């Protein structure tokens, strides 16, 4: 009982701290820097979620932009649809907006989670790079579907009912409140018994199965959770943009997510957090390089893999820096 109380108090304190920090950010930073801070937050959610699949469970998704797209479109569409009704019920102002926004985010996450389930159930019978290619294929199919969905604006994208685009609900507080929630949830999951089973799957799937670990069910669950977090990130992203367009969820976006988790270190939550920030900041810092920016970005990816394939932290967390990284078994077979 006491533990629950302490945890709740800690949670509330954290949210209050984020709320307070939000004022500082809005007062002290230019809109340009604020946007990068928000994007970094969205990236952290994406990275931490993807890390559950690619890092902890040892599966490999290179099509997560598809789930982000489902979340973004889902949240934008649901938000736009329920807004008039809820505004009628609750009036206008910050509180009804917050209700609408979070309902929309959850709806987006739910849709993304369901699509994760649909993709995951058949594909997770595959391993390694075959799975990677299937997720890539699904990501592309999802993008092509949105590209042809006329009720969602097809190639132009979905901009809601208002001519100035979707409501700009996303702010520092909501992004980082969700970052905190998701990081805590994923952290607790990873260090729970289920998390140990996921790691067992990564280390040796056949051995894990022999130990009566329900590998397929666990993998599918992890996949759905990961897709749902990508959906939250998509919803937050949609509401900091004027609208959602299919071209923003190309294969490159999935690669950006992979870069985030390998820079920080596969299997490390704090590494994923650092990686998310790294991608948001580095793409902006390199902007002065103009046409050379993406050449350098790609080269950076290769060099990191050659020089430090385990990433900044390896599979350790930041607070475990003192200990040596655990060796990961080499994944064999198909």
């Amino acid at each position: 009982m006491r533990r629950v109380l302490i945890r709740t108090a800690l949670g509330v304190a954290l949210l209050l701290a984020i709320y307070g920090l939000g004022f500082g950010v809005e007062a002290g930073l230019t809109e340009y820097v604020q946007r990068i801070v928000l994007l970094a937050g969205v990236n952290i959610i994406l990275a931490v979620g993807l890390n559950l699949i690619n890092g902890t469970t040892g599966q490999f998704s290179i099509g997560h932009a598809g789930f982000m797209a489902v979340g973004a479109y889902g949240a934008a569409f649901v938000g736009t649809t329920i807004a008039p009704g809820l505004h009628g019920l609750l009036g206008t102002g910050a509180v009804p907006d917050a209700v609408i926004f979070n309902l929309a985010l959850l709806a987006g996450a739910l849709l993304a989670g369901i699509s994760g389930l649909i993709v995951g159930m058949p594909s997770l019978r595959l391993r390694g790079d075959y799975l990677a290619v299937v997720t890539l294929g699904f990501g592309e199919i999802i993008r092509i579907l949105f590209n042809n969905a006329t009720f969602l604006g097809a190639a132009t994208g979905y901009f809601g009912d208002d001519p100035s685009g979707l409501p700009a609900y996303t702010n520092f507080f909501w992004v980082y409140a969700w970052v905190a929630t998701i990081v805590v949830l994923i952290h607790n999951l990873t260090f729970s018994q289920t998390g140990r089973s996921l790691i067992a799957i990564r280390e040796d799937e056949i051995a894990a199965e022999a130990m009566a670990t329900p590998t397929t069910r666990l993998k599918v669950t992890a996949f759905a959770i990961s897709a749902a977090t990508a959906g939250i990130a998509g919803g937050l992203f949609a509401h900091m943009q004027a609208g959602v367009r299919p071209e923003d969820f190309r294969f490159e976006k999935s690669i950006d997510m992979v870069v985030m988790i390998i820079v920080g270190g596969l299997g490390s939550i704090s590494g994923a957090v650092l990686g998310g920030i790294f991608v948001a900041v580095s793409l902006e810092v390199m902007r002065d390089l103009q046409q050379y920016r993406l050449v350098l970005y790609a080269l950076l990816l290769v060099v990191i893999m050659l020089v430090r394939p385990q990433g900044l932290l390896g599979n350790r967390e930041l607070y475990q820096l003192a200990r040596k990284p655990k060796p990961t078994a080499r994944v064999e077979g198909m």
Partner: protein
Amino acid sequence: MRILRRTLIFGLGAAALSTGVGCKKRTTDAAAAAESASATEIVIGHYASMTGSTAHFGQDTDRGVRMALEEANAKGGVLGKKLRLVTLDDRGDSAEAANAVNRLIDVEKVSAVIGEVASSLSLAGGRVAQRRQKPMISPTSTNPKVTEVGDFIFRVCFIDPFQGKVMATFARQNLKLDKVAILKDVKNDYSIGLSDAFRASFTAMGGSIVAEQAYSQNDTDFSAQVTAIRGSGAQAIFVPGYYSEVGSIARTAQRLGLKIPLLGGDGWDSPDLFKIGGDAINGSYFSDHFAPDVATDKAKQFVSNFTAKYGQPPTGLGALGYEAAEVLVDAIGRAASTDGKAIRDAIAQTNGFEGVTGKITMDAQRNPLKSAVVLKVEGGKAKFETSIAP
């Protein structure tokens, strides 16, 4: 639990730290930039896809913008100050487009913004410009929604419904066609917008659309679509795409023995159309802003200067980029100020401005009123066919 808290605090701390560091540097940069800006120069921002799958469009437009500002500087600049162009790449991504516009305003301290080619990216960047009260002129975003974002957003190109109607009228009344097929680029909102407008106008005038086929930007194989159209009995194909694909489509049609004209819009305007299409594109028609053979002296001068500077004639995108920059410079001159609102009012009052692509008058929706011409392709050149007023 302690562990968890520490992680979280560290993560958030790292986030705050990294952005705080970035911010400190930025503000000093910005202060320095602002200081020099106010004294001797006016900064104009351009955001475009300089990389990625639409890089050729962004780079084409940027050439036009750059040339217009250089020419204005050669004539002594505006308000006694030189103009400086800052181009930022958005790699065809809307998050980056919004970032770029914010950066142009906060870091580069621009007085006005030019951009983007794609309507969906202009919507993303336009919302930022509108909220920050900086005037923005899109050179080539044809979706009507773009300028509906707000009163700071302008364009210098046609809107989709207008151009679609022009070609439908031309097909129905001048060419007396009954059956037309549509081949559109589904990854390109410009192409979809034009197709929708063309279909609506053409069927309203009693014609029928006998086949509707699609491709995606950067596709190179069109044989399936052309084969399907070949069996439909169409008398012409409306292909409202960009030159790069249209040339290939014409060659594919020729190769498959389909001898009917193609119809299109200003996306065709590029020397590459003739280079890629060769003799297959002869006998086709497209709508555009001006006809090179009966152009004004100003337009002819522009084409020859552009060719001298970049080694090849301008594309439609280059011309519109040039025009957007010219309209902006003219407005800054009339506003006699670099204040966002003053420039906006001056752009809104643009009336009969002699641009390279025609006389421009801004209407109340911040769209230019200008007439279109229909060009016919003959022997590797586009020739004036007829003029259609708005």
